[in-house]
């Protein structure tokens, strides 16, 4: 396992679990959950500074960007123009080039708007960004994103925040088999075992936010996801047995009395 590397845009990571920093009760809880999850990459959103309440705590005071890789996202963007503006601002804050692109198309189901996503991926790549792309679980679209310069393909398991788990395992498997890019399940996981399934399908990592932040015990769930990702990866690398439709005894048939 020690030689099993998780590489995104030529950067090496030990943990295959990426976590979001939204929806926590407060930043202290968020920081502790991240710590327990073992995640080395966290997604962050770009928003207006509160100029009225100057004492409001800053995320960077709780999660040190020198120790944890910040992955700025474009959450809340519904077109390419807004997504590009957001990520250019994110880069300006401190040179962030590794980013998560997420262009949404529908306010209710939060499914990605893939035409705008594709357009944005091309432009951002040309501007020198390393773009990890949130997308639907369509193998054809995943291929087009890869051809447009994406550095990681991040299909949804289910709608963002839904907790439904991986709805289309076959598509994820097809995407896995067609790409050498890091494949990361992003959005829709509900419990730790969902992460194990993603890893057993051959995904390189998972991105989780709500399932940890909104669990009854976020710290315990952070730990559960950490272990689930490790277990799933180990299981994938170990190679599962073939499925049979009939039983095969585990004890030898020879020597039965």
């Amino acid at each position, binding site marked *: 396992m020690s030689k099993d590397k998780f590489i995104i845009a030529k950067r090496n990571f030990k943990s295959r679990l990426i976590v*979001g920093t939204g929806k926590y009760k407060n930043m202290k809880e968020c920081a502790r959950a991240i710590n327990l999850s073992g995640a080395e990459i966290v997604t*962050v*959103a770009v*928003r207006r500074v509160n100029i*009225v309440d100057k004492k409001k705590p800053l995320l960077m005071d709780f999660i040190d960007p020198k120790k944890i890789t*910040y992955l700025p996202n474009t959450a809340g963007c519904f077109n390419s123009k807004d997504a590009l503006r957001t990520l250019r*601002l994110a880069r*300006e*804050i401190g040179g962030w080039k590794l980013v998560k692109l997420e262009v949404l198309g529908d306010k209710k189901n939060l499914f990605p708007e893939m035409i705008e996503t594709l357009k944005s991926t091309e432009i951002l790549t040309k501007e020198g960004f390393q773009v990890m792309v949130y997308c639907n679980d369509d193998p054809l679209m995943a291929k087009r994103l890869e051809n447009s310069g994406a550095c990681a393909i991040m299909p949804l398991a289910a709608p963002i925040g839904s907790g439904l788990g991986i709805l289309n395992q076959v598509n994820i498997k097809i995407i896995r088999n067609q790409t050498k890019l890091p494949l990361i399940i992003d959005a829709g996981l509900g419990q730790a075992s969902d992460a194990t399934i993603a890893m057993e399908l051959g995904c390189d990592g998972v991105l989780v936010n709500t399932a940890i932040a909104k669990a009854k015990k976020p710290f315990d769930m952070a730990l559960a996801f950490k272990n689930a990702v490790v277990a799933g990866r180990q299981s994938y690398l170990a190679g599962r047995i073939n499925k049979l439709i009939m039983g095969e005894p585990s004890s030898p048939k020879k020597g039965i009395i």
Partner: protein
Amino acid sequence: MKKKIKIKIKINGKIKNVDKNSKLSNIIKNFKIPLKKVAIELNEEIVDKKKLNKISLKTNDKIEIVHFIGGG
């Protein structure tokens, strides 16, 4: 005493009255914003944080100051 002329600008969606010819650097300083942790836009153009003291504000200028917050 000569009265200072005020102009209206918008910062993060809120209208503010500031002295005419105020420098952007002074506005940022007044809000006690840690420069290293933010990015600044003036009329939808990103501003080089090193050049804030060279930018004089005009009526109806729109300033956006953003930072990172928790998100998925």
